């Protein structure tokens, strides 16, 4: 596989609790990878380690062939690893327009205001360009998170439970956006609980439980996996 991202042997402990127990994940360039698993299985922790928000206790991350080592999160973002947050973290005191200008300005973009407006239009947020990000609805917040994440022109986008709290139609809206972004060449890793979204979106699925990879394969294969039933239902 032409791996864009390799996470090898990642171990992460919080005090006495092992969140990630030697996890290895590869992400192919251009693919749509889904990550599932019960609460507390380590999905978000793994993404935090990949994005640089946390240091692993062991293991390595390689992006586009180069090891990331102890590179801080902001440098990884500039390198092309983008992520959204499980609970949206908008820049509430700034307008939507300015929310997008921030990542654009870190990338030495030639025309930040123009690009920001274009992105707002693409994500259906142009109407609210001047509004404060703090005043947005749930689905608008999710869309802003995505727009902000892709503003920097990333190679890899990690979407962390972007569908949580959304209605059926809103889920479809966000899914369409993610599919469009992938069609443009952005590799997407989607963490989700909503199985419908995972099945529709992913080419490959990885399932985590108690800090370990317990299943990996096509969506259908993983969903039928006996380990999965045990993890989710405790049977």
């Amino acid at each position, binding site marked *: 596989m032409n791996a864009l991202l390799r996470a090898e042997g990642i171990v992460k402990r919080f005090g006495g609790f092992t969140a990630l127990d030697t996890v290895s994940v590869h992400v192919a360039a251009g693919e749509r990878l889904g990550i599932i698993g019960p609460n507390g299985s380590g999905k978000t922790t793994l993404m935090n380690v990949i994005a640089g928000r946390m240091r692993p206790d062991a293991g390595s991350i390689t992006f586009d062939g180069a090891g990331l080592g102890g590179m801080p999160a902001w440098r990884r973002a500039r390198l092309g690893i983008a992520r959204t947050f499980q609970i949206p973290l908008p820049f*509430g*005191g700034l307008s939507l327009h300015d929310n997008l200008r921030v990542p654009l300005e870190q990338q030495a973009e030639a025309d930040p205001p123009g690009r920001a407006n274009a992105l707002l239009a693409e994500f259906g947020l142009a109407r609210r360009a001047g509004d404060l990000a703090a005043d947005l609805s749930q689905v608008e917040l999710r869309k802003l998170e995505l727009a902000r994440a892709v503003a920097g022109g990333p190679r890899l986008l990690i979407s962390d439970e972007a569908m949580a709290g959304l209605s059926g139609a809103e889920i479809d809206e966000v899914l369409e956006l993610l599919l469009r972004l992938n069609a443009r060449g952005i590799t997407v890793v989607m963490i989700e609980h909503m199985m419908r979204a995972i099945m529709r979106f992913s080419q490959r699925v990885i399932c985590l439980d108690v800090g370990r990879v317990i299943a990996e394969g096509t969506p259908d294969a993983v969903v039928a996996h006996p380990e999965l039933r045990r993890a989710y239902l405790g049977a």
Partner: protein
Amino acid sequence: MDFELLLDALLAGVLLGGFYAALSLGLAIAFGLLDVPHIAHPAFVLVGAYGAILVQGKFGIDPVLAGLLLAVPFYFFGTAVYRFYHTTFESRGSDAGLRGLAFFFGVAFVVEVLLILAFGIDQRGVRAPYIGRALEIGELRLPWRMVVASAVALVVAGAMMLWLSRTYIGRAVQAVAQDTQALALMGADPVRVKRIAFGVATASVALSGALLVVVGPVEPNMARIYIGKVFAIVVLAGLGSVSGTVLAAVLLGIAESLMLSSPAASWTPAVAFGLLLAVLAFRPQGLFGR
């Protein structure tokens, strides 16, 4: 420095540390466990001190006893303060950090000025049979007031540790420090638990204040110097560790005492803050941090 002087300074430092522990235990809970940016803690201690002065003035009782009596109204004062803080700042999220800090700073400031207006800028003290006399063991002189302060500190620390580990509420407080969500799942109301804890912390402040004025006369602008000492102790201890707080307090006491008997004595006020900066720079999680 010859051995006798060194021993003297060390012993004085240990006793001083015991006294500092008495001052800091309330903050170990309020800031260490509850995460409240309680810059006004030393100001509250000072209010406790002046309270003890007033109670002794009115009823003629021993200052430490006065402190114990004041612990009751201070508890309710503490719950009220936390209730206000939570409604106004904690639950509003976003820039609550900035405003919460500014709020407590304002409160500390207003308390200082109110104390000046009420009591003037001159020093005030209390009387007690153990103030002014010393315990003599061989060549060593241990001022009784420091021994009393350290003894009370140990008792309070012990009581707090028991409370935190043996009672339902105490364990709930430790749990809420680790994970508010888990507590809510257990069926306890995290806000109520925090409120009680803050009340207990403030109650201990009444006692701290009484000990402060036992150890020496007080004046309204003292709070500022103590901010550095108590936060240095709580941070060095590691947030939330009661035993760590006692140890850290003793370490600071010894450091200050040694500095005081050295040629660089006039730099002693800077020791606590210097220690704080060093801890923040090199080991921000403290000695026993969670």
